[in-house]
């Protein structure tokens, strides 16, 4: 006797039978096949032929699939129907396998659901991770919640977050009731020359000795600075970053004690900070403060300060003390401290800066996207459950307990959610990498950003909950419902409650997509409006390179006799650059467009200087003769600076139009006089002209000098001959490409001083565009989200329409049979789809209006309720909805009535 069992078992693989069931069927069929085989032999067939015939007959129908539909009832012992072994853990693996098999049988459904979940989970996780890294995760300092940045503010001009004066810092430090300690630093531009390689520009701060102690971070190698009561020392010591240690010194431990030349002076490296330590920003070198904070000027505001709050003291309490102190200082030192205040900002909030509102907007968007994805999956699950009413009813009839049915659906939902989460993880990792890699802007604390396990867990839980609720609830309802009615329904009609629920979900989905699209649309318009703003310069074909001259060789407020050398350096450099045929124009300025100059007081002659300290503020810039020409700023009256305006000549200034309009209204500013009160700006620049009185020799058109959004502030320009600065931006305009221009500038710089490296190299266009980077970044992500939301909604609409067309095939067939034109049937379907989208769009517009105030901080030049944006968005959504209607509509219109009746 041949063994037919394996042949049969193989064909039963699809049937999803229990072991007991399968055994019985195999036994019965095997006997049949054997009988048939013997009969064929008896009739004279050869054994091989007989075997082939028997197996051929077994192939006739798809045995497995047929049996799966039948769900045979063998000795009333159907495990799927419940056999008393419904223990909690019994057959978990079997259930999972069964679930996977079932899901694989409907690849379209499974694919759509997993894709929706994956995109939703992935996008939400990526954004949560960014937010977590930038805003939420504690900083890597000791007790970071007790750290605050201390800023000064100008009460007159309502400027907050201004740098602090070194003398004031020592006063803040004495507020022992609020602060445990205060550290301060400033950023000189440092060129490092160590004989180990090319001189490089190092991001450096010169800091009070207690900075590391205030932050609670110790070097990983060597030591920090000894702390003196005056916070400064005479020893020239420096601590370097882990990054600089690795890149410049190859991680050599003998670096401790090595001498390096910083801006012409020798410093000893005493320590290396841990890799995670980035404060402030991406500093690579901390130089020990070598001058006394208390002996500096209260007028000079160029330092930044961080303080550690006493335990139990909040930033609010500290701010109250700072305000009281500021009032006191204002009375004691009116010229410098009148109308100035100070305030503390928790470090975590300060670091996130401009990203805070943007990231929270994105967080909201990510939440919405996750919601849309969940709705889509809910929708798909409901549609599927509707299609499976029959299956559920039959199983229930056959004795499956409710628990058993729910369990099966539960496993399907879990498998779906699991697959979706896995895909989501991939999407999240790729998304975060893409953001970090292609972000047009510097993201603070980028090193701390990674896909967060906690976040992934959260989003996974959200999807699992959705999958369970919408996957299992229908099974619960159906198994309780009247079997008779379900079985009747299975032949015709829809389960109307289910369909209604799905319509509601589609409406919600469209509404959320509209809200997201509206947000993205508003941001796109904002960014465009921002970039359309006239900066006041012609940025094309201009590059900017910054050069910082070391104090030791070119002058500082400690050795002012060297200052003329700084002036000479820049004159020589620019003269040589202008001699190059590739360069059409070259100039220099200590600030680029959109950067605010030093805000220092000035007076007009004849003004009664009522109170010292009541003079008006203007921005002070230093430029060379050809700066305005190079960046394309028009001279509106008078003349440019030229070689007449030497340090030993009378003081002259050029003012911008805003200055002329405000302080010389209705008259020509040229020839007027201003009393410029700035004689030096910290250690950075020094006025070489003794007299305060300056003649206005020219008026130039306004260049935006705070941001693209704001009108230009009044500005006074001095010539580099009379008010030289160590650090200047060299701007060059030429017909050659940017890289060539930069190379030319580099060559000329090194010809004059071989130890001078170039600083940051940017095109002027990039400088201007950079100011729009944060909103543009948010806009890009928001647009991606909105696109995904639209896609998911389209899938949702398509899904419900296809389902409804299937359910109504009989009705549509009747209509066609009775003479309705296919176009009428198409219209019927389209009307339903458009109806759903219109309802969704209406709700979405309301949601967008309500939600747009969350975006208002990011908007520019567009109202949160901008009608154009809303109209465009709604039109777009309706268009997409129409496209989603096409396929189901076509199917309905082209359906063959005869076929419909037969299958109905």
């Amino acid at each position, binding site marked *: 006797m041949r063994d037919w069992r394996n042949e049969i078992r193989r064909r039963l693989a699809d049937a999803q039978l229990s072991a007991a069931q399968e055994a*019985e*069927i195999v036994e*019965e*069929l095997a*006997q*049949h*096949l054997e*009988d*048939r085989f013997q*009969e064929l032999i008896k009739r004279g067939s050869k054994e091989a032929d007989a075997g082939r015939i028997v197996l051929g*007959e*077994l*192939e*006739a*129908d798809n*045995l497995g699939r*047929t*049996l799966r*539909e*039948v*769900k*045979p*009832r*063998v*000795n009333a012992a159907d495990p799927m129907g419940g056999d008393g072994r419904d223990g909690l853990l019994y057959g978990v693996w079997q259930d999972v396998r069964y679930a996977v098999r079932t899901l694989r049988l409907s690849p379209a459904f499974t694919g759509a659901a997993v894709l929706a979940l994956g995109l939703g989970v992935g996008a939400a996780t990526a954004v949560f991770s960014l937010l977590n890294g930038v805003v939420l995760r504690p900083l890597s300092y000791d007790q970071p919640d007790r750290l605050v940045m201390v800023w000064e503010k100008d009460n007159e001009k309502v400027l907050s977050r201004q740098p602090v004066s070194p003398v004031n810092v020592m006063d803040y430090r004495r507020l022992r009731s609020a602060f445990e300690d205060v550290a301060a630093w400033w950023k000189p531009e440092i060129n490092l020359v160590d004989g180990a390689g090319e001189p490089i520009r190092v991001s450096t701060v010169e800091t009070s000795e207690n900075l590391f102690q205030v932050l609670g971070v110790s070097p990983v190698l060597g030591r920090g600075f000894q702390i003196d009561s005056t916070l400064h020392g005479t020893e020239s010591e420096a601590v370097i970053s882990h990054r600089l240690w690795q890149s410049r010194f190859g991680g050599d431990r003998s670096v401790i004690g090595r001498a390096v030349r910083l801006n012409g002076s020798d410093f000893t490296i005493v320590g290396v900070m841990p890799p995670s330590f980035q404060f402030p920003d991406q500093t690579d070198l901390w130089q020990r403060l070598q001058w006394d904070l208390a002996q500096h000027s209260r007028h000079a505001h160029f330092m930044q300060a961080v303080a550690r709050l006493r335990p139990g003291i909040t930033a609010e309490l500290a701010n109250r003390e700072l305000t009281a102190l500021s009032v006191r200082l204002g009375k004691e030192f009116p010229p410098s401290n009148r109308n100035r205040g100070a305030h503390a900002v928790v470090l975590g909030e300060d670091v996130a800066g401009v990203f805070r509102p943007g990231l929270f907007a994105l967080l909201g968007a990510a939440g919405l996207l996750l919601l849309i994805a969940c709705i889509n999956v809910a929708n798909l699950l409901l549609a599927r459950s509707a299609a499976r009413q029959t299956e559920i009813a039959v199983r229930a009839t*056959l004795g499956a307990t409710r628990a058993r049915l729910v369990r099966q659906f539960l496993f399907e939902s879990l498998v779906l959610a699991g697959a979706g989460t896995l895909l989501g993880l991939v999407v999240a990792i790729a998304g975060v990498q893409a953001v970090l890699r292609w972000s047009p802007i510097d993201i603070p604390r980028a090193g701390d950003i990674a896909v967060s396990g906690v976040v992934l867990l959260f989003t996974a839980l959200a999807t699992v909950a959705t999958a369970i609720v919408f996957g299992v609830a229908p099974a619960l309802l159906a198994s309780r419902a009247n079997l008779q009615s379900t079985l009747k329904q299975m032949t015709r009609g829809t389960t109307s409650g289910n369909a209604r629920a799905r319509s509601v979900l589609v409406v919600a989905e469209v509404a959320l997509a509209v809200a997201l699209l509206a947000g993205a649309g508003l941001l796109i318009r904002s960014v465009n409006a921002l970039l359309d703003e006239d900066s006041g310069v012609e940025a094309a074909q201009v590059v900017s390179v910054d050069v910082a001259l070391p104090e030791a060789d070119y002058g500082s407020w400690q050795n002012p006799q060297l200052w003329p050398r700084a002036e000479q350096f820049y004159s020589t450099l620019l003269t040589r650059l202008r001699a190059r045929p590739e360069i059409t124009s070259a100039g220099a300025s200590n600030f680029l467009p959109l950067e605010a100059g030093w805000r220092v007081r000035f007076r007009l002659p004849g003004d009664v200087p009522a109170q010292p300290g009541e003079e008006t503020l203007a921005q002070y810039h230093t430029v060379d003769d050809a700066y305005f020409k190079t960046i394309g700023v028009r001279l509106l009256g008078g003349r440019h600076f030229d070689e007449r305006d030497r340090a030993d000549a009378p003081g002259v200034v050029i003012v911008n139009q805003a200055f002329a309009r405000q302080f010389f209204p209705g008259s020509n500013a040229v020839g007027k006089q201003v009393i410029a009160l700035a004689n030096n700006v910290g250690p950075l620049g020094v006025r070489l002209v003794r007299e305060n009185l300056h003649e206005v020799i020219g008026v130039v058109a306004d260049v935006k000098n705070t941001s693209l959004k704001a009108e230009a502030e009044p500005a006074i320009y001095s010539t580099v001959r009379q008010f030289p600065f160590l650090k200047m931006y060299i701007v060059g305009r030429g017909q050659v490409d940017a890289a060539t221009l930069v190379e030319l500038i580099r060559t000329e710089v090194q010809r004059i001083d071989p130890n001078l490296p170039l600083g940051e190299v940017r095109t002027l266009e990039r400088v201007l565009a950079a100011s729009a980077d944060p909103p543009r970044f948010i806009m890009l992500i928001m647009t991606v989200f909105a696109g995904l939301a639209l896609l998911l909604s389209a899938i949702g609409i398509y899904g419900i329409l296809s389902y409804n067309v299937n359910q109504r095939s009989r009705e549509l067939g009747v209509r066609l049979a009775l003479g309705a034109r296919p176009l009428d049937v198409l219209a019927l379907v389209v009307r339903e789809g458009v109806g759903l989208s219109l309802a969704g769009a209406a709700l979405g517009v309301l949601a967008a209006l309500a939600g747009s105030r969350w975006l208002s901080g990011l908007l520019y030049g567009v109202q949160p309720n901008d009608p154009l944006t809303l109209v465009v968005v709604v039109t777009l959504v309706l268009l997409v909805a129409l496209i989603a209607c096409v396929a189901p509509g076509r199917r309905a219109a082209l359906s063959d009535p005869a076929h419909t009746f037969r299958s109905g």
Partner: protein
Amino acid sequence: MIDRELKKGTTPLLILALLEQEARHGYELSKLIEVRSRGVLSVHAASLYPLLYRMEKQRWIRGRWVEKAGQRRRRYYQLTSAGAEVLAAQRNSWTEFVGAISRVAGVEYA
């Protein structure tokens, strides 16, 4: 060859009829259908057993394993009372149907 659809629709009737006299196992049923139809109708295992299980689920027939001395146990199907009613009803409508076809198409009913 008889049209597939027609065959599918009539096989349950044949099975019910064959089970009217006595309980039979699957092979016996397929054999009888082939023999009594003189080879015109044949039902192979792949379609027979799913059909039997479906009819069993509809409670028209009932299957039971029966062991006879010296033989392997076999599954025998027998008609239930519900099955008998269905058979009677189907016989009637079949007779009517065949009569109608004959009258319209001019086919003599053998």
